[in-house]
C-alpha cells in the first residue's frame, strides 16, 4: 500500500554487498539488468558469487570488471554478437575465477527446487558427460562446500526406487542471496507482469532471499490487478522496486527494444584483452550515470532499436529507415 519498496539505482549497490550471491532475470542477451550491473561496477563490488541459469553479456561485464569470484552456470557469450565469454575465458585460464559447470536444465531445475523449497531436484539429464566428472567439482576442490549456502555435494547419483527407471542425478537447490530482475512492468506493491517468454524469472525471484525488480515502468498496482492471471510474480515475492527506462540496454526487452547488436559486437571485440575491457568500461560505465549513458547512446540509436508494439520487436525491414 505504501511506496516503501522503491529504491534508487544507487541504493541497489548498497543492498548487493561484496560477497553476495546473485542471480538475474532474462536469457543470454535478453532482459538483463544492465543499469544495475553498471552501478555495481562503478561501486567496485567484489567477491560476488554468480549463480545463473545461463550467463550473457551482463556476466561478461561483471567478470571483466573483477567483481566475480565464483561463476556457477552453464553458458556465457553474446549469441550472434560474440561467440563466447572472452573475459571469463581469460580469467579461467588465469585461475582468477572459479567456474562450476552444470547443464542448462540442471541449473533450471536447481532454481525450481529452491523456489519450491525442496533441497534438490531429480533428473536424468547429462548422464555420462564430464559435467558429472567428480574430478571437476570445482567448489569442492576449493573447499567451499560447507552445506550452508553451497551444497555439500555437487551431485548425488541414485536409482529410481518407484518405477525402476534407472540412474538419476540429484542436483542441489540453488540457494542465492539476491535476484536482480529487469522487466517490463512492476506495480507499486511489487506485482510483476512479464511479456513474451518469461525465461526463468518467476523461479529465480522466488529462489532468492531478496528480490530487486528494475522495470521499464512502475505502474499503478490496481492496473496489474485487473488481470491477475497475466501476472508472473506476486507482490510479496519482491522486496525492492525501481523504474529505469532502457535499463536492459544493450540487451533487449520483448515489446520495448531489441538487442543492440553493434554495441555487443564492439564490447565482445574489446574483451579479447583486459586492457580492451578496461577501456570500454572507462568509456561506457565509469563517470557516467544512467541518463548520461542514454544521452551518449543518443536518440538515433534508441529509435532504431525500439520495438514495434504490434510485433513486440523491431522488424528488420524497418531498420534502414531511421
Amino acid at each position, binding site marked *: 500500500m505504501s511506496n516503501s519498496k522503491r529504491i534508487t539505482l544507487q541504493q541497489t549497490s548498497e543492498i548487493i554487498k561484496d560477497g553476495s550471491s546473485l542471480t538475474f532475470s532474462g536469457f543470454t542477451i535478453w532482459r538483463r539488468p544492465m543499469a544495475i550491473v553498471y552501478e555495481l561496477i562503478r561501486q567496485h563490488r567484489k567477491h560476488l558469487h554468480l549463480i545463473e541459469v545461463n550467463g550473457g553479456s551482463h556476466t561478461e561485464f561483471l567478470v571483466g570488471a573483477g567483481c566475480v569470484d565464483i561463476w556457477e552456470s552453464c*553458458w556465457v557469450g553474446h549469441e550472434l554478437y560474440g561467440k563466447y565469454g572472452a573475459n*571469463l575465458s581469460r580469467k579461467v585460464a588465469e585461475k582468477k575465477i572459479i567456474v562450476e559447470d552444470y547443464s542448462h536444465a540442471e541449473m533450471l531445475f536447481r532454481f525450481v527446487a529452491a523456489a519450491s523449497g525442496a533441497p534438490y531436484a531429480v533428473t536424468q*539429464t547429462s*548422464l555420462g558427460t*564430464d559435467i558429472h566428472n567428480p574430478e571437476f567439482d570445482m567448489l569442492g576442490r576449493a573447499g567451499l562446500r560447507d552445506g550452508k549456502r553451497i551444497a555439500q555435494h555437487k551431485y548425488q547419483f541414485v536409482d529410481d526406487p518407484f518405477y525402476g*527407471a534407472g540412474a538419476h542425478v540429484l542436483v542441489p537447490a540453488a540457494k542465492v542471496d539476491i535476484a536482480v530482475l529487469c522487466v517490463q512492468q512492476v506495480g507499486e506493491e511489487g506485482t510483476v507482469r512479464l511479456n513474451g517468454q518469461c525465461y526463468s524469472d518467476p523461479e529465480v525471484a522466488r529462489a532468492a532471499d531478496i528480490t530487486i525488480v528494475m522495470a521499464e515502468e512502475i505502474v499503478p498496482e490496481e492496473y496489474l490487478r485487473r488481470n491477475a492471471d497475466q501476472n508472473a510474480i506476486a507482490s510479496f515475492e519482491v522486496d525492492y522496486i525501481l523504474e529505469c527506462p532502457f535499463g536492459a540496454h544493450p540487451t533487449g526487452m520483448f*515489446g520495448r527494444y*531489441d538487442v543492440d547488436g553493434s554495441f555487443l559486437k564492439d564490447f565482445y571485440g574489446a574483451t579479447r584483452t583486459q586492457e580492451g575491457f578496461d577501456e570500454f568500461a572507462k568509456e561506457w560505465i565509469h563517470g557516467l550515470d544512467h541518463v548520461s549513458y542514454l544521452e551518449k547512446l543518443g536518440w538515433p540509436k534508441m529509435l532504431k532499436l525500439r520495438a514495434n508494439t504490434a*510485433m513486440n*520487436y523491431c522488424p528488420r525491414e524497418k531498420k534502414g529507415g531511421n
Partner: protein
Amino acid sequence: MSDFASPEEYGLADLLCCAAAHEVQNNEVVFAGTGLPMVAIMLAQQTHAPNLKLIFEAGTLDGRPPEIPTSVGDARCEMGASRASGLFDAFSVAQRGYVDMGFLGGAEVDQYGNVNTTCIGDYLEPELRLTGSGGNPDINSFAKRTVFIMVHEKRRFVENVSYITSPGWRVKKWPGGELVHRRELYGAAYRGGPSAIISTLGVFRFDEQDGHMYLDTCHPGTTAEQIKEQCQFDLDISRVKGQTQVPTREELRLIHDVLDPDQIFIPKVKK
C-alpha cells in the same frame, strides 16, 4: 521432379542447412538451438514438414516466427507460437519425452558422437574456455535423436573429446569414468542418441549397436578418403551411400528470400 541447384548457385551453409532440414519428418516435435539449426527447421516447416512443432529452449512451444530469431531468447520467438512461457516448460516437455529431434552445434566431436562445447584442452588447465554446455546435453539427453551441424577440421573430429559436454553413444560411467553404451546409463530415459553429424565435409551417422560413427554421404567435391583423412580416428567409410543431396532452387529461394533475407545466419553466394 526436384529442381536441383547447380554448384555456383549455392554455398556450403546452404548445403548444410538443407541437409539438416531433410533430417526432420512431418508432425515431429523438434527442439532447436540458435543459428543454422533454426533456419534448417524453419526450412523444413516451409517444405515437407508443415506440421512440425518447434520448441525454443527459452520457453516457446510450437513456434512459427515470421521473422527468424537471432537466438532462442529473441522477442521474435513469441509471434505465432502456441505458447510462450519459460525454461521450466521447455525442459519439462523435453524430459517428459515429447521431443523427437534436437538440432545442435558443437566445437569438437569424437568417434562415439560425444560433443564438446566447454573447453579446448584439459578442463583443469584449459587452453581455451568456450561458451559451456548451454542446453546441448539436455536436449541431446532427452530427444529421440539429435542432429549436430559442425565445422569439419581434423582437430575437431577426434578419437575422444577432451571434455564430454553432450552425450554420444558411448559415455562415461561415473565415478570411474569407463566408457559404456549410453543405453546402460540412461534407463527409462534412453530414447536414442545422435543420429547425424552434418559437417562441412559430409554427413555422418552412428551404428547404434557399437556406437561408432560412419560416413553416410560426402558433400559435392569431397571423397570418402579425403574425409577419412580429416578425422583423428579411424572413420568407417564402408557404408557410404553417395553424395549429399544438393539444395533445390526452391529451398534456396526459401532460405534467402523468406527465412534469412538479411543473411543473419546464411550468407548468399555471389553470382
